[in-house]
């Protein structure tokens, strides 16, 4: 901590004005300089539609795995050949889907951990309910007004927080981020400007922006005035960092598609020091009731994009990954047996990924419940051995530094004894 806030303000020539008049972006910069180490960042990724954890992290060591999935099973690693890819061996029992080959080096370098047989204790098989429960982190309770990450933000207020402290890449604020703490929601930061479908060259467009800025700055309406301040600050930050012109570092190449695009923008925000603490992104297309495919096919295509997006983000962030954790989740897993349409139906427990510098990776965490008939949940699905709230809580406590996670997980007692230990 070489530079004090006071020094920073003095050398910026702003101390004359007193703290109340210092522009907030400078005040924030001053705080940033004071805090030891970097700000810890969480990137949460929701795989909407119930990803098939059993074909993503394959328990090839289970005898029954192949017979349960006659047309969609992924061959075990020993069956690998030039022409026929197989599961990528992780630990002699579990293997990654071959489309996730770009994640294997991250597992090997111990930056990627997997928690298998994790999920919600509520046994609903409705996408709607299960997503709701996971995002609110209150399984079985529908009326929880806000999302778990918003409660994290509420519980750790930051004075003069950056408008980019919490960003969701979605068309409308996802349940996870809903609540009273401010969250910027956008699909495309490039679109975050004032234009109104009008060519920026049109005479008068810039006038409108200036006029709005003046109008709101002096408005007596405090809610609108302070929010507009954030809005215009965000617009000017994005102009400053030239969001449209980004060259990923280290030769990283993001795959086409929404997840790659979202993660690239997350990377850009982090690198430009915009104050990002929590980011949320989505990846859809996992609900494969029909023709799921095995080594190739629908799931394989989705996984290729998914794995390549995570790997590109990791590569792009380079050393900054030391402060970043990426957490993936999906509302439930899929049936252990394939169905009559070469797909799988709605199931129960699933696999979650945790990626980043702080992660103790290279390991598949969790107790494996087995796939024998009597070991399955309700006789059909992978049983649950890790409550997703214990995974979220471990991230909140050990990565984001939450002292008391009670408020984030209402109605649930968090105990570090149940943490799987993939962090800290």
């Amino acid at each position: 901590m070489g530079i004090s806030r006071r020094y920073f303000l003095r050398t910026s020539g702003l101390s004359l004005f007193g703290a109340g008049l210092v522009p907030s972006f400078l005040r924030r910069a001053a705080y940033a300089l004071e805090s030891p180490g970097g700000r810890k960042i969480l990137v949460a990724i929701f795989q909407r539609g119930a990803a098939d954890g059993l074909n993503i992290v394959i328990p090839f060591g289970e005898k029954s795995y192949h017979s349960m999935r006659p047309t969609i099973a992924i061959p075990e690693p020993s069956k690998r050949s030039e022409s026929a890819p197989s599961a990528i061996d992780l630990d002699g029992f579990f293997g990654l889907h071959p489309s996730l080959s770009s994640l294997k080096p991250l597992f090997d370098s111990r930056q990627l951990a997997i928690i298998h047989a994790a999920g919600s204790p509520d046994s609903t098989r409705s996408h709607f309910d299960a997503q709701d429960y996971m995002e609110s982190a209150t399984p079985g309770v529908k009326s929880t007004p806000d999302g778990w990450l918003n409660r994290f933000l509420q519980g750790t207020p930051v004075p003069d927080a950056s408008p980019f402290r919490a960003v969701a890449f979605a068309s409308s604020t996802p349940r996870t981020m809903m609540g009273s703490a401010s969250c910027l929601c956008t699909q495309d930061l490039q679109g975050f400007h004032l234009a109104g479908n009008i060519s920026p060259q049109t005479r008068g467009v810039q006038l409108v922006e200036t006029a709005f800025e003046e109008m709101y700055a002096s408005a007596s309406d405090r809610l609108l005035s302070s929010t507009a301040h954030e809005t215009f600050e965000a617009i000017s930050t994005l102009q400053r960092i030239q969001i449209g012109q980004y060259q990923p570092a280290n030769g990283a190449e993001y795959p086409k598609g929404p997840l790659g695009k979202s993660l690239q923008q997350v990377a850009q925000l982090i690198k430009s020091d915009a104050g990002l603490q929590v980011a949320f992104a989505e990846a859809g297309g996992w609900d494969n009731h029909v023709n799921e495919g095995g080594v190739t096919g629908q799931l394989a295509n989705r996984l290729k994009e998914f794995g390549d997006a995570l790997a590109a983000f990791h590569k792009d962030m380079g050393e900054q990954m030391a402060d970043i954790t990426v957490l993936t989740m999906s509302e439930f897993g899929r049936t252990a047996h394939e169905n009559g349409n070469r797909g799988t139906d709605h199931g129960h427990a699933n696999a979650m990924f945790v990626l980043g510098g702080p992660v103790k990776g290279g390991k598949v965490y969790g107790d494996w419940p087995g796939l024998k008939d009597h070991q399955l949940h309700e006789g059909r699905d992978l049983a649950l051995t890790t409550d997703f709230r214990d995974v979220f809580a471990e991230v909140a406590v050990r990565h984001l530094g939450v002292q008391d996670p009670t408020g984030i997980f209402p109605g649930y007692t968090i105990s570090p004894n149940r943490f799987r230990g993939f962090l800290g």
Partner: protein
Amino acid sequence: MDSALTPDLAAWHFLSRTTFGPRPQDIQKAKQVGIGGLLDEQLHPERIDDSEVDKRITTLPTLTMSPAELMEDFPAPKQAQKQGQKQGKNKPVNPPPPPPAMPPDMPGAGKLMPPETAQVMEGDGPRRVIMELGREQFWRAAYSQRQLQEVMVHFWMNHFNIYADKGVDKWLLTSFEHDTIRPNALGNFSQLLAATAQSPAMLFYLDNWLSVGPNAAENTLPPRRGPFGFGPGSAAMKPNSERRGLNENYGRELMELHTLGVDGGYTQQDVREVARCFTGWTIDRPQQGGGFVFRPRMHDFGEKAVLGHRIGGQGGLNDGIEVLRILAAHPSTAHFISMKLCRYFISETPPASIVDSAAGTFTMTQGNIPSVLRTILTSREFNSPAAFRAKVKSPFELVASSFRALDADSDAGAPLMGMIMRMGQPLFQYQAPTGYPDRASSWINSGTLLARMNFSMSLAANRIRGTQIDLQALTPGDDHEAIWDHLVQRTLGGEVSANTKAAVMKGLEEVGNGGAGKPGAFPKTSLAAALLLGSPEFQRR
């Protein structure tokens, strides 16, 4: 607090709450018949001719179709594919990868779709059904003469919120709006409540159709084929062990959200007992758009105790009806509904005095909605400076009021609806049964405020596909004061801060110097209208 609004402001205030935004002709009418006259008229929508908007709506074919017809004609992509396979066509060995759209029971469906895709989807899939219902709602909000009824339809649709993308609800919502909410929006609360309780849309949304008493015949007698009236459909429809149990969702939300309120004095035991009462309230052939049916085989015929009342033993269907009667007459319900109405019509924190008065009317009239509204809308608390512009408009209200202020016309298609979505209110897409929170802080954040300003600019500059304003008709001349006067009357009833005026006048000055009127320039009227619609004042009603 005790001071009242001036007559002009009172009229503006009254219209900004009981309509989707005052139009110049509404202000004229208020001057002729007075606020009392407007209220009397609006509380009897059946006496108001609304043929103009009705005619517009006949262009939307899905609105007159039954759920069964909608399911048949607008199947989900997945079902369409399956049906094709049954008929022996479309049987690819390696089917192409799925479109970016997600299957129908997927909450994110539509969310991750780029707008272009959403538009393509509108043509044939169930999204068309929901889009047309949204168009109807918007057109009625913007153009109906029965404004208070529309405001109340809007209010009750949110109070009894249903998420369109949950399973079959996308085909049931049209009927829910037309047959359940609309006829009762200005009726009696207990009838409205009963209608929602027996609506297939609500039975499905809150899972009551699946709820089976632990000792019901369904669970104790040998299973019959197709106990729930559906065949081997999608996975969501397959019976499983969970479906044979008591499902408490409806029982809980009925008390917490529809009637008593979370602090209304019920216990978890009451939730369970209410759920038992409603076992057997289900849907006849949900996959074919069937209606409400009571199935005795699913019902728990044991005795129940709800909020201190004994219900049963052999009540059957009447158990649920008795619960609805108890809840509708409960003092907590009178208070909870009155509170929500006061929050909607007066402010987020309405004085306790008016909530109590409204609750008194509710109890005295046994839930007569027009009487409760009359109490609220004629109160001192309503007609007070503290209530003036106390409410932030929802995105839907913002767009509708902009339309009414500038006399805009629109096909209410995907470009306009997409803007409402980006402002944070995708129609029928709120997942939780709570409905959209009626709070300024939940509507306004940096992204949605930007989206509001962008909408204002787009509308004022005629840059929304399918939507037009007549700039010529809105332009009284080239004089800045004249442009200002005309537009500030239309948009804000002339009541505006000095800041806002200064910013608009400065903008007009600068655009004038820069050569307004030349090709490619932003017309002065567009500039002033954009700034007024995007102003802090116009975000409130």
